[in-house]
């Protein structure tokens, strides 16, 4: 008869086997290896003193088995098995989950801002960049890449803040619009670079937790976000050119741009939720459910 597990231990076992199943996707004997892992866990439990199997005991068994991606590497090509683990990645999934939570909050502030024309760039985008830089700057010591990204976020914030006075001045003197244009382009490019690299780093953290489906979703989302942003920026530029052809008064031009921007807001918000917030939420859930170093993980869950 199989021994009873505490709810936390049962959850950890189930989660481990699910991750192993995902990691071994494509392996010819996936079912056989999964059966062997189930047997292994059952036999290891038989070696324990009588009584319900606790979380710490289960975490120890699973820690000895090792991460499922190691198993996948073992069954893949020799070159893949020999690939060293990049030194910049986090190993503590709980800390990684906290970091992703902070990044989500930062992006959420930016996405909420898309509802409010004009204010979005100067307030929400600035607040979002401050939160982003702060989250990246306080990432655990081993995440060197994330910390260097924090500097990039501070530069993006500087550009964002510079756009505010430039925008005001260009209302009175349209010639100043020529100065704000390169700053605006630099800000947009930096924003895209930040999103691209942050998503790349988060996908590496998620990969460390063997959540390959979530990693793939993040990588797909960042490509889609890049394409969507470039497409929308191109569309905005074309609209600007078309409006200028109509030789409208300055106030009429501003009103037309505001109306078009308002019409595009639901689409922008939808993209923000679909391509940024949702994949990050999935990544956070994957990291929260991933086991870390045995007893440390057990203590965190308790």
């Amino acid at each position, binding site marked *: 008869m199989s021994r009873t597990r505490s709810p936390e231990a049962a959850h950890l076992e189930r989660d481990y086997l699910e991750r192993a199943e995902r990691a071994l996707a494509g392996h010819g004997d996936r079912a056989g290896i999964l*059966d062997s892992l189930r*047997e292994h866990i059952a036999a290891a439990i038989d070696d324990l003193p009588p009584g319900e199997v606790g979380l710490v005991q289960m975490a120890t068994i699973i820690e000895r088995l*090792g991460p499922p991606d190691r*198993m996948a*590497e073992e069954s893949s090509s020799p070159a893949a098995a*020999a690939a060293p683990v990049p030194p910049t990645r986090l190993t503590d999934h709980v800390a990684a989950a906290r970091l992703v939570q902070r990044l989500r909050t930062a992006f959420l502030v930016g996405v909420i801002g898309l509802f409010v024309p004009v204010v979005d760039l100067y307030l929400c985008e600035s607040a979002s960049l401050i939160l982003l830089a702060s989250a990246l700057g306080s990432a655990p010591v081993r995440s060197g890449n994330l910390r260097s990204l924090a500097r990039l976020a501070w530069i993006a914030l500087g550009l964002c803040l510079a756009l505010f006075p430039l925008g005001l001045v260009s209302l009175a003197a349209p010639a100043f619009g020529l100065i704000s244009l390169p700053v605006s382009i630099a800000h947009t490019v930096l924003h895209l670079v930040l999103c691209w690299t942050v998503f790349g780093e988060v996908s590496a953290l998620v990969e460390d937790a063997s959540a390959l489906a979530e990693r793939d979703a993040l990588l797909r989302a960042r490509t889609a976000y890049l394409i969507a942003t470039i497409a929308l920026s191109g569309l905005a530029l074309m609209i600007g050119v078309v409006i200028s052809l109509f030789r409208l008064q300055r106030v009429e031009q501003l009103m037309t741009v505001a109306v078009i921007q308002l019409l595009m807001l639901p689409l922008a918000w939808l993209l923000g939720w679909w391509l940024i917030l949702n994949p990050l939420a999935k990544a956070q859930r994957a990291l929260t459910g991933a086991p870390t170093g045995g007893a440390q993980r057990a203590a965190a869950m308790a």
Partner: protein
Amino acid sequence: MDDSDPWLTQVKRGIIEMAILNVLAGEAMHGYRLVRMLAEVPGLVVTEGTIYPLLSRLLSEGMVIAELEASAQGPARKVYALSPQGRRRRTAMAAAWKRIVAAIDRLSATPGDRT
């Protein structure tokens, strides 16, 4: 040397395969016991779970055979044993291993030690 070193990973992979065949040459046993035996050898196995894909490959290559054995504690468990093909493979591996070790020892010796 770090356990994640690519060269060490490759060497260990071959050695663990040989170790599995050596252990099963002595007696048939459950996967768990086999894994624990290998895991107790210092520096040989980094994580126990990596043994199962190797065992799976040895099974598919016909080096190892597995039989299900009923268990009072839970589901039936696999008992692994060496096949005749696996015994031949083990003998060939042992001979190759001896040759390699001897060759490396000769190359590693200082010039004054070489005869």
